[in-house]
């Protein structure tokens, strides 16, 4: 029987597209009883990885990370074979203005999300058209992605992805295969993206708490630039 480190590593790479670093795995195994059966170890390792910061837990092979010049906007289009594991650092709904999002956050802060405490601010009129046209529910989203080396790039949701939205957890892991990068932006589609899930607690909390300020800053920046 080969050693559990190799076995877990192979298993995670083949089923999830995640390649944990040897250091992380060794540390992980020291926390587990030697008698634990392998399938359980596999599961626990996967769970821990999804809750970890991949810049400390995954190995950094060139093939499973963003190329160093990923931001190069002169490259019109290229394909990355991967699999590249990334974690989500931030998400934004591009179909909503920042101001609209700030108002929604403030309404929740005032407790208007609670049942019986809602305030209806826009009343439907009798003349509302049945041919709305625009899909409700928001999106496409823009995601800030980070690979195992800590390199960041933006991804845009070219086609709707399950598990992606303003309600998702920060630190959520995704694996990209044969993904197209156009002008430095990763184009996300269901065929190229596997959303694994997971969450980095500290990151999520910070993102949530800082979101209103971020949105405000983005509005001001937008005003100054143009």
């Amino acid at each position, binding site marked *: 029987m080969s050693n559990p480190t190799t076995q877990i590593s192979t298993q995670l790479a083949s089923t999830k597209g995640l390649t944990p670093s040897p250091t992380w795995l060794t540390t992980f195994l020291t926390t587990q009883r030697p008698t634990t059966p392998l399938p359980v170890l596999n599961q626990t390792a996967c769970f821990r990885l999804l809750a970890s910061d991949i810049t400390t837990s995954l190995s950094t092979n060139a093939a499973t990370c963003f190329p160093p010049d990923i931001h190069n906007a002169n490259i019109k289009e290229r394909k990355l074979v991967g699999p590249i594991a990334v974690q989500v650092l931030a998400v934004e709904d591009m179909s909503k203005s920042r101001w609209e999002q700030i108002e929604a956050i403030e309404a929740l802060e005032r407790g208007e999300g609670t049942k019986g405490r809602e305030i209806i601010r826009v009343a439907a009129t*009798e003349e509302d058209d049945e041919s709305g046209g625009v899909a409700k529910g928001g999106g*496409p989203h823009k995601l800030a992605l980070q690979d195992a080396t800590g390199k960041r790039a933006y991804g*845009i949701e070219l086609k709707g992805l399950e598990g992606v939205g303003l309600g998702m957890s920060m630190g959520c892991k995704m694996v990209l295969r044969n993904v197209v990068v156009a002008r430095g932006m990763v184009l996300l589609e269901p065929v190229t993206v596997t959303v694994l899930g997971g969450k980095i607690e500290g990151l999520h909390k910070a993102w949530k708490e800082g979101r209103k300020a971020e949105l405000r800053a983005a509005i001001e920046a937008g005003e100054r630039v143009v």
Partner: protein
Amino acid sequence: MARKILCVAEKPSIAKSVAQHLSGGQFNTHSIGGNAFIKNYEFDFNFSPPWGQCSVIMTSVVGHLTGLEFAQEYRKWNACAPGQLFDAPVETGVDKDKKAIAANITSQAKYARALFIWTDCDREGEHIGSEVRQAAFEGNRTIEVKRAQFSNTEREHIIRAAQNPINLDDLQVNAVAARTELDLRLGAAFTRFQTLTLQTMGGDLQDRIISYGSCQFPTLGFVVDRYFRVQKFVPEKFWSIKVMHKREDMEVTFSWRRHRLFDRASVVTMFERCLTACIAKVTKLQKKPTSKWRPLPLTTVELQKLGSMYLRIDSQRVMKIAEELYNKGWISYPRTETDTFDKGMDLKKLIEKQGQDQAWGGYALTLLRGGFKQPRGGRHNDQAHPPIHPVNYVAPSSLADDERRVYEFVVRRFLACCSEDAKGESTTVEIQYGDEAFSANGLIVLERNYLDVYPYEKWTSSQPLPKFSLNETFEPTEANVTEGETTAQGYLTEPELISLMDANGIGTDATMAEHIAKIKEREYVMTQPRAGSAQTNGTTSRGGRGGRVVRGGSSARGGGGGGGSVQQFIPTTLGVALIEGYNGIGLETSLGKPFLRKEMEIKMKEICAGTTSRNDFVHETLEQYREIFVRTQQQAGVLKAVSDCITFA
């Protein structure tokens, strides 16, 4: 014993028309001492058994007969701490100016076998009925009490109502009594407290009464909320992709399925991929019949909203005019939540009466010649009144200007309800261009139907679309990225405010207009025309006491109202200070928010349904507000501080 029946209506005009219908025009008129408007009409009428042929005295009150007041020793502003008003004894008494009217009923009741109450059929009318009953009991302990059920003053309808009386609904009476008590206690306690607190700040606030009302404040809250949203608004740029194609000398514009995005880089990247793809493919081609639905039967809330929107007459004035049209017998009772016509109603007969009109008579006749369609039914039914509709024809030329416009609207709306939907054919062409989807829509209006009589709505054919076929590919003539910027919403307009009050449960359809007028009168808000022309609206209204509804008799006419553009509401510094002050106190249920009042309205309905008792309701609500009152008193500083920085900034 004399077979005499005493009939009492809510206002003189109704008494007169009921007397005319029941008597066939033959009646004697007697004045009563002490009131020049009230008349007693005397005639004979053959009632259904057990009454049979009786002599009738038909008279009326003028709205409420009685009022609720604190006991004498609590009436003066400084007589007690405002907080004591939550428990201070209250007493019901006949209003000073109504004494002669009550005496008339008392003395007429002495010789009558039965009392028939002809007040309007709604909660308020039910309560007025109970006041009339009380006055009659003063003169005759054993008088039998009945109530006529009617919703317009058309002759047959009135005769049917006289033949089929029902009982007074004491549940509704209790609901109104409970609300009256709460309005009095809460209104007086908070009004005295905030007036006395803010008076000490001097300046502009020194001699002012700063009234509180449990509907007024949430109403004001909506205006302030919108004001701040407009003020704080920051415009943002957005981008979109537009595709244009020229074919058969026609230019078709395809719009992006994503509509618009707030991220330029993403849009440009998506756009580049469209250009790279070069070829667009038709992925969907659909032609289908479409229709624009005829309007629903008219409710009070819709009348107020649309009056303001289409006729530019403010809600309070629309209601006054509608009430006059009702009193004169031209339209049905204008306070109704019902948007469904009863299946048994003879609508064609009502349409027929409109056949003689010069403008819409021809249309009405085409409905009778086969165009008639049973109106759509909405989901609201107050089980008391039908939707607002014309009862009789009146030549528009014989009406005053605004009366004519309101009557015309009610008639056209009714005829539109009884018409066929407008029909058309819509064409949708969807294309895939790179990774992006676009679509173009075409509309051909085939039959206008109801739109012919209802000019308030528009529906027009679009430019024709050239021919496309499914799966065909083509190279679009032009594609570009367009840029736009978000704009702030406008300040709140009256139709919007009414919609918000309705959606959030503030006031009833019958009282909304009063609350809006009240916050104008108190100078918590101002109105200005939306377009920005220099005209100001000087609408004034006659005030009621303690937030009570002013009914009957008062034919106060609001000035202005007929301007050319929609009026919008802007809070005054005082209005802002009050709402910000209460929000600043940090109560979960700020008085400026709609929740508490909404709960009150729900519980009133429960009283009417018999599931909550009047005492429980009053007690619970008082406790709820008492807690808020105590917190507000403790934090009076916050209220003052906000007023201070806003008023004197």
